């Protein structure tokens, strides 16, 4: 019972910590980070905006 409680707690924390993160390639050739993988973690100290969209 105690082990289940710890497991559930760890899974919940992992979910929360990982939810707002990613590691994706920058395909904009006019960006100074073109070709590299970016993640929000790389910009700690800055406010970041993340726009999700695609051509319909």
């Amino acid at each position: 019972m105690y082990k289940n409680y710890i497991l559930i707690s760890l899974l919940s924390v992992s979910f929360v910590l990982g939810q707002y993160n990613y590691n994706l390639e920058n395909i904009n050739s006019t960006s100074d980070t073109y070709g590299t993988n970016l993640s929000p973690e790389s910009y700690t100290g800055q406010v970041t905006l993340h726009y999700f969209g695609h051509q319909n």
Partner: protein
Amino acid sequence: MNAGIDNVKIFAIGKSQYNSSNTNWTNGNSIPVLVDPLPYNSWSSWGAGQRDLFFLNANGDYHTDFNITSWNYNQIYNTIMDLLPEDTLLGDTNGDGILNVLDVVILVNNVLSNSDYDANSDMNGDGIVNVLDIVLLIGIILS
């Protein structure tokens, strides 16, 4: 969106399925355009939908998100300003932390040259930078 805010980073996240159309975003700008490959785990983990805009604070913690299909500049701007340090000074066009004639000179030049909208120069918050903002800034400095 050009609000003269230097310390905010913007990312666009698309889907690999629409890679051929991602160039519409990259044309004329330098923001990172990221591609989420199938099965679009990033979109899923963020709970993102088409045209959703997410805001993370400087610690990388989630702040809020909303859909911007109906573009609301003030909502976006105000959300950013809520996240920035309080020392961001309205009217401080040269970013030196002081309101003085140097800021007025820059503001006048921006108005006369029809520069892109700068929310930091929009003293009365009406969405337009014009002589009214110049008058307000001068009044603040003189007081």
